[in-house]
């Protein structure tokens, strides 16, 4: 035994004089650190109710619940997370995956209640708590990304080469890109509500992740018989509400749709979809083989109707074929979709223009119901002096010519002014570029206000179209050369009306310019042509602002007659026409086979 080992422990006495280490709670409290994972706080305005927090919580501590003061909208489920603190383990994964960064944890870690009935399940941001305004507490740190915020870029023909041909510009995703892009989805489903056709987007994206393209195609066809079209040129409203888009790039829903359908060879659709079409003995006539007509025909076939499409032109597709240029929408893709419809038993009567080759009356008499979706074919005029000049062309005509005779210059010359700011205008610009023209675009407002798709604007600029914005056409004048024309236009100033509202372009009289071109292409919109309505039908058909009035199942003021597409909906895009066709098919079914149904005029 060493003496030291006996004496040394007495050192312990020294510690008796030290100050205590503990806090005298509640006199002295200690706040949680800046990074502390305490009770949740949620910015209710920022939260979109996507439910990703609920999905990640492995304790199932989160329920998405409706709350007062928050409405369900196209981009907000209207639900908010409610946290069960009997289950939560404060892992903050919900914070890390919150798509909007609205959710965070505060540094408050205690909660007392003397009321035994008080619930320990709170809706952060709705149930007011003392910690709501605590600035401190865990948030997702910049640099920690558990979601994938960056979109897979799609390869395309570079701008130097894209204008040299009408070959499809975008190559589509590779298998790897598609899978990576599909993995970005968080399955919130907000997009379903926004899509006019309510396509089951999260499910078909899941089918890509699972590599099951047949299932994917079935999901697509459940709401859309033109996925190859929409996978390329859809206005993709769905992407505007994608929750991943709040902090990053929205999931490329449109491109993924294209990817699925591109995996199925044209002749294999029948096998892949494995559909059986019944026959209920009733027949429906459809006027117009655009998206609206094709969609109605398909869903009517599914319900057992025999369907015949009357189409004035020699091929199907409507504006998708004769308007949208081939570098965006290759014709073989439209054929792939139309051929499948033929396999489904849809009958096509091409080159049969209703009003000329056959009369509406005959169809109304011969069929159990008639659906029409004839699109907008009459271009709006510019409403300015001199526009009847022969070198002022209609955009629709130029695009039509480029479809019919792609190898010939559609009479536009080598310098072109395009007037408008929508997709038709962009198409006219880019088609003109492909005929080697020098192209100038004139638009009344700012780029941010252009109705055209932002991709289209970007690609037009990439291909060298010169944009003149806040530029108002004033008049058209003949040029010295009869094959040319002068555009007189003025610069505009954006003026906000006194009562607020959207700023309007106001012409500045002192800033007028004159430019000379080989032609001016007007592309500022178009309207429907209802001349084939004659006699009693003309009288009975009700329209408003040039569009056909209908009920929620697309039934017009004439009970047997249903409508859809650009002449019926304000969006005037392919997917809305497709949605209309589907609805009309249900409407026709209700009308013909459900005599007790109260929603339809009989």
């Amino acid at each position: 035994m060493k003496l030291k080992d006996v004496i040394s422990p007495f050192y312990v006495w020294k510690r008796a004089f030290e100050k205590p280490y503990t806090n005298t709670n509640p006199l002295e409290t200690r706040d949680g650190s800046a990074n502390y994972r305490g009770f949740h706080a949620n910015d209710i305005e920022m939260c979109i109710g996507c439910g990703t927090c609920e999905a990640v919580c492995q304790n199932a501590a989160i329920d998405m619940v409706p709350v007062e003061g928050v409405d369900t909208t196209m981009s907000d489920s209207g639900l908010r997370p409610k946290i069960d603190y009997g289950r939560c383990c404060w892992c903050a994964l919900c914070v890390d995956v919150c798509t909007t960064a609205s959710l965070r944890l505060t540094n408050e870690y205690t909660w007392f209640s003397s009321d035994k009935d008080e619930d320990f399940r709170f809706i952060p941001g709705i149930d007011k708590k003392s910690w709501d305004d605590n600035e401190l507490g865990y948030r997702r740190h910049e640099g920690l990304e558990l979601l994938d915020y960056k979109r897979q870029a799609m390869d395309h023909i570079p701008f130097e080469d894209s204008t040299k041909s009408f070959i499809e510009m975008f190559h589509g995703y590779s298998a790897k890109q598609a899978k990576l892009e599909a993995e970005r989805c968080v399955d919130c489903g907000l997009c379903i509500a926004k899509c006019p056709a309510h396509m089951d987007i999260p499910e078909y994206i899941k089918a890509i992740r699972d590599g099951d393209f047949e299932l994917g195609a079935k999901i697509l066809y459940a709401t859309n018989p033109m996925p190859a079209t929409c996978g390329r040129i859809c206005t993709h409203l769905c992407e505007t509400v994608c929750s991943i888009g709040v902090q990053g790039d929205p999931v490329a829903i449109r491109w993924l749709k294209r990817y699925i359908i591109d995996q199925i060879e044209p002749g294999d659709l029948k096998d892949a979809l494995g559909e059986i079409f019944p026959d209920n003995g009733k027949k429906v006539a459809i006027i117009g083989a655009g998206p609206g007509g094709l969609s109605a025909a398909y869903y009517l076939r599914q319900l057992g109707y025999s369907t015949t499409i009357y189409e004035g032109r020699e091929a199907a597709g409507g504006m998708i074929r004769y308007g949208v240029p081939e570098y965006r929408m290759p014709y073989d893709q439209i054929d792939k979709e139309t051929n499948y419809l033929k396999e489904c038993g849809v009958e096509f009567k091409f080159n049969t223009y209703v009003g000329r080759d056959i009369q509406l009356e005959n169809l109304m008499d011969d069929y159990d119901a008639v659906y029409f979706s004839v699109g907008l074919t009459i271009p709006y005029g510019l409403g300015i002096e001199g526009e009847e000049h022969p070198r002022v062309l209609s955009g629709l005509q130029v695009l039509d010519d480029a479809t019919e005779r792609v190898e010939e210059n559609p009479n536009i010359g080598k310098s072109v002014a395009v007037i408008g700011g929508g997709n038709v205008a962009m198409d006219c610009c880019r088609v003109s570029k492909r005929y080697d023209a020098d192209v100038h675009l004139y638009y009344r407002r700012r780029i941010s206000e252009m109705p055209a798709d932002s991709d289209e604007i970007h690609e037009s600029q990439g291909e060298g179209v010169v944009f003149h914005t806040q530029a108002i056409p004033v008049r058209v004048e003949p040029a010295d050369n009869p094959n040319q024309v002068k555009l007189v236009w003025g610069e505009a100033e954006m003026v906000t009306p006194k009562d607020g509202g959207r700023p309007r372009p106001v012409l500045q009289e002192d800033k007028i310019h004159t430019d000379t071109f080989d032609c001016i292409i007007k592309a500022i919109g178009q309207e429907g042509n209802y001349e084939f309505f004659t006699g009693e039908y003309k009288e009975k058909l009700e329209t408003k602002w040039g569009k056909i009035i209908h009920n929620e199942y697309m039934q017009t003021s004439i009970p047997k007659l249903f409508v859809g597409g650009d002449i019926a909906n304000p969006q005037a895009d392919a997917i809305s026409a497709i949605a209309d066709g589907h609805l009309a098919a249900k409407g026709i079914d209700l009308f013909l086979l459900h005599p007790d149904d109260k929603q339809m005029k009989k």
Partner: protein
Amino acid sequence: MFTPDRSKYPKHVNGRPEIDLSSGKYTKVWHGPQHPGITGNMALEITLCGDEVVESITHVGYLHRGFEKLMERRTFIQCFPIVCRIAVPEPAFNEYCFSAALEELSDIEIPEQAQWLRTFNLELMRLSSFLMWIGGMAGALGQGTIGQWCVTHRDYVADLFEEMTGGRIYHMYMLPGGVRAPLPPGFKERAFKVFDGIEKMLDAVDKVLYNNYVFKQRTQGLGIITRDMIERYGVVGPNARACGVKRDVRLDEPYVKYDELDFDYVTANASDAYARAVCRFEETLQSIDLCRQVLNKMPKDGPFHTKTPNVMNWKVAPGETYAKAECTRGEYGFYMVTDGSDKPRRVHARGPSMTHAICLMEQLAINTNVSDIAGLMVSIHTYPPEVER
């Protein structure tokens, strides 16, 4: 020293003692699961002859939460908040092994800064756990005051964890791809202050506990781990190093940034409870040194996390791997099998406690005086939750 009358001892048949309780020669006592000297929810079923242990059987089952099974039903990211719970006082090793295994199976390289932060977190974890152990060991031998000192300072380490990770006990910090947050401003200075305090306290512990006649008397010669036990029972960590075995994953197969740190094996030769206590004391000081080294060497900032696939849809290709690290008690590892789905097919957590608390303890207990059982149990440093995954 007390010498028992061995004539009354049971005969061994097939390696087990033949005990006839009705003979009146033996007493059975349950040590635990509530006994503080048992290091958690475990029980030793002890058969005594007089006050000498003739048989000890370790019982578990008081803490089974089925983590391994739970993980088979959770997506990879959902496993992340679970794993830390597998060893309550040392969550970091679970987080690290889980993440490292998943990263290996998914071909993810984590950034430099994340490696430094992981090294720091793991070493700080060792420090915190050693402090708890020293307190526990002192407590088991009746020196509760030292337990208070150590736990106080461990709480200052918990403050550091809180700042760094957002949690004091379950840090949930190391996740697949790296770590969740960089160090907050001013952290290094605060950490150094905490380390200084601990060193000062350890100096007192050295005087009061390690140079204490009673402590030495009771621990020297207690629970000697023989050479042949080391391989037979898979003895690792300070339990092995106190027998002169140079075995330390940090040095044998360096991971994260251990190959850039300056340190060596801490060993002793006596193989008894005292030698183990000395090793752990030295390793506590070593941990402080390593923590300082990391904070001094690591870059000021840099990316701390690499983008993983969207965790909501993360599938991992079929594969299997074993990731390991040196926790305070030796080799800690996760064996992970994936099958191409979004959930692990199987995860097995290997902690040193399984072999130490059951196979080894059952051997060491024999012929021990019952009053030393608590000290013996603590001296092999086991955590029941990692036996019951």
